[in-house]
């Protein structure tokens, strides 16, 4: 297991390098530059180019990025807070932190609500409850996040005045409610659908019949025998999506005015703030890679037949 994880980490470094290369050349392919919108003299812009090394050939710039990253230096922001360390913006000023808080909460809800709902629907398949859940989850998957977020704002904040429309820095429980609901509803519904399908498949397996023949209680039958066997598709889905939840909160972050990573990411692209684009991409990619590794290890924990080996294919 340890050697397996080590190999995966080494492979991850390679993956990150490729991601850096693609990101670097793509962002340089976007027309414009960080200082274009500023009303500065051509001389000043030239000076800025020199200062940040943007006048050098692309390949040299890329080499500098890689070497800096290997030293743990993410560079400085060119635009938003000119001259500030990117690492400081991402981690210390709480941007990344906020997105993580929001994302993890949504993820926890997706698991804690989605999986039980799926189990109930599967166990009561064909009943009105199953039908109701099917309609609800289909609607939940179909509604775009911005519609749901706006609806919540309109009802809970504007009409009923229960909640503050600005969630800010997510400091108290109340500020969590609307963003987390908007962000998680899709995932809750999707996980519920996924669980229902794989649970139905598990319930019809021979070993469930064996367990029934043994006299196992229905509750144990579903929660112990069927659930664990139906978790694989859910884990497969949740792993990569975790990173998506954390970045994909851009819509939610802007609707509820949370200064999170998602919003920051989009802004950095609009501003051509090269070091920030690069840093956010690398951090998020690393997150996806880590989650994939976590998924593979989780597989092993759920299903003893899966072995973790370094062999390909």
């Amino acid at each position: 297991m340890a050697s397996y994880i080590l190999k995966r980490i080494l492979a991850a470094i390679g993956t990150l390098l490729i991601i850096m290369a693609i990101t670097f050349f793509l962002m340089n392919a976007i027309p414009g530059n960080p200082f274009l919108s500023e009303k500065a003299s051509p001389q000043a812009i030239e000076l800025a180019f020199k200062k940040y090394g943007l006048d050098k050939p692309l390949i040299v710039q890329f080499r500098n990025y890689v070497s800096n990253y290997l030293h743990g230096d993410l560079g400085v922001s060119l635009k938003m807070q000119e001259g500030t360390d990117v690492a400081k913006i991402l981690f210390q000023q709480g941007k990344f932190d906020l997105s993580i808080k929001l994302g993890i909460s949504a993820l926890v809800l997706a698991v804690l609500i989605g999986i039980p709902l799926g189990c109930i629907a599967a166990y009561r398949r064909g009943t009105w409850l199953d039908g109701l859940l099917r309609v609800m989850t289909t609607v939940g998957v179909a509604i775009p996040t911005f519609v749901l977020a706006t609806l919540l704002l309109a009802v809970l904040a504007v009409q009923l005045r229960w909640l503050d429309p600005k969630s800010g820095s997510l400091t108290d429980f109340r500020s969590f409610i609307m963003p987390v609901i908007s962000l998680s509803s899709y995932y809750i519904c999707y996980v519920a659908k996924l669980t229902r399908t794989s649970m139905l498949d598990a319930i019809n397996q021979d070993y469930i019949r064996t367990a029934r023949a043994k006299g196992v209680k229905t509750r144990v039958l579903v929660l112990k025998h069927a659930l664990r066997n139906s978790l694989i598709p859910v884990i497969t889905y949740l792993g990569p999506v975790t990173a998506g939840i954390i970045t994909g909160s851009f819509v939610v972050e802007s609707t509820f005015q949370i200064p999170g990573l998602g919003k920051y990411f989009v802004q950095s692209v609009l501003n051509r703030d090269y070091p920030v684009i690069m840093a956010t991409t690398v951090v998020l990619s690393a997150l996806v890679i880590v989650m994939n590794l976590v998924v593979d290890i989780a597989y092993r924990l759920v299903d003893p037949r899966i072995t973790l080996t370094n062999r390909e294919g």
Partner: protein
Amino acid sequence: MRETDTLIKVEDLRVSFFTPAGEVKAVDGISYALGYNEVMGVVGESGSGKSVEAYSIIGLLQNPGRVIGGSITFEGEDLLAYTPEQMRQFRGNKVSMIFQNPMTCLNPVYTIGDQLMEALTCHDKSISRQDARARAIEMLELVGINNADKRMDQYPHEFSGGMRQRAMIAMALICKPKLLIADEPTTALDVTIQAQILELMKSLQKQENTSIIFITHNLGVVAEICDRVSVMYAGKIVEQGNVNDIFYQPLHPYTRGLLASMPRLDEDAHERLIPIEGTPIDLLNPPKGCNFAPRCKDCRKICLREKPPYADFGDGHISACWLHFMEAMNKGVGAE
């Protein structure tokens, strides 16, 4: 067999599946009694209702299947009147079951030990973990699994097919049930493993005094292990008797057909096997008369019009065929 020795008595049991296409009478009025310590074989081809009949005893019928008539009495208690919770306590405790495919019948994500111990603990809450483990190990040793202590912590995929079926048997017998229902337990196994499993079941049956209902389509297996045999065709028992009568004096044309289609060691190697012509009837539209009539070489007019009653040949040997009555009329003696 005395009446008081009856363990389970099934009378006129009827099970139907209510499908969109109509009612399928999977089990259509079967009756038998099984004594303590007795092994009964239930023989028939696929779709003859032999498994459905067994599932209704243990309360495992799945929708859209329902028991629509008759009674099942186990040690004087009416099983069909049991509440679901009573049925759950009954399953695995008084009656347990082993299935056809040991490869898929054990839960792949739990250890063998866990699954064995669960069979105990779901009926006996008071048993300690150590005791349950000790008992499970004892059972694994009983069914001939070496290194039982180590094997307890292995997963089903680390067991071979034969070993899994042994583990299934251990699991089924761990609560010392009075009746074991074996639904084609050797069908999915290699022939050599089949023989081993049959030997094991035979010796355990003697040792534990368990009655067995042995469902199979393999007459060889029946001869090996059973005391009595019920031959089923299209939801009905067509012939029933002790194993010698069925093998040496088969009466019903279907039983005769089955025996003739089976290769035998004591016959000339050049002897042709005689298949039973035709296919089983469509249970959605059963014929008016005898279910076997469309395939029967000795079919008479009456066979197409009316269902044959049972003729009793003594010692529990019964057969449902009009031929017996015609022969009796010709001789003027014999059947009722």
